[in-house]
């Protein structure tokens, strides 16, 4: 059991190093530019209680989500590393700068 815990801690540290360095070099996005880009997101994320068609689950709340996580999520969709078809299509249409701008706006939202 302690060995498993130790291995997990090592994995955590390793992953943290990678993610942090990847984002640290990029300039932060512009929330105002991002605000103009999120109209596409609203079709699904703008409707409170909106359900993904199949499999059926609520489309996540992304307003107020953390900046780095949003940049990573959109980049993973863009690269095809996350599976959701609609979000992959969205990701492919966005430049890296678009993604940073959108993340800057979304992370600035308060309920």
């Amino acid at each position: 059991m302690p060995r498993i815990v130790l291995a997990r801690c090592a994995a955590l540290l390793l992953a943290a190093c990678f993610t942090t360095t990847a984002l640290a070099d990029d300039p932060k996005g512009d929330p105002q530019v991002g605000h103009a880009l999120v109209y596409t997101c609203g079709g699904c994320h703008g409707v409170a209680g909106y359900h993904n068609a199949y499999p059926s689950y609520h489309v996540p709340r992304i307003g107020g989500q953390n900046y780095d996580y949003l940049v990573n999520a959109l980049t993973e969709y863009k690269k095809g590393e996350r599976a959701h078809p609609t979000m992959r299509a969205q990701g492919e249409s966005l430049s890296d700068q678009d993604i940073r701008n959108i993340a800057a706006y979304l992370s600035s939202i308060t309920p």
Partner: protein
Amino acid sequence: MKSIVLIASLACGVAFNALAAEGGAAPGKNAEELSKSCAACHGADGNATNAQYPRLAGQYHDYLARSLQEYKTGERQNAIMAGFAKTLSEADIDTLARFYADMPGKLDDLAHHEQGAE
């Protein structure tokens, strides 16, 4: 007589709790116990302060459950989350998802935050 019954039922309760803590035949782990691993990155209140980790508090419970299921099957790939998700049963996933969904959070739908909406 009444006090004997009371003592007996108390003793049963203690014995049952001890069993549950052992994790033997107990139905599922409780949210507080399960969420200890999550708190290191996602915060004890579900509002991760390190921006690389998502906020969970106030997120839809079925989205959280779906994410954990995808980490468990490998459909969604993340070295950290795969390790944790593999240890969770379906009941654990449901417990955790509801625990974080019910927390007061900073997340919101975009309904009031699109251009022209305000």
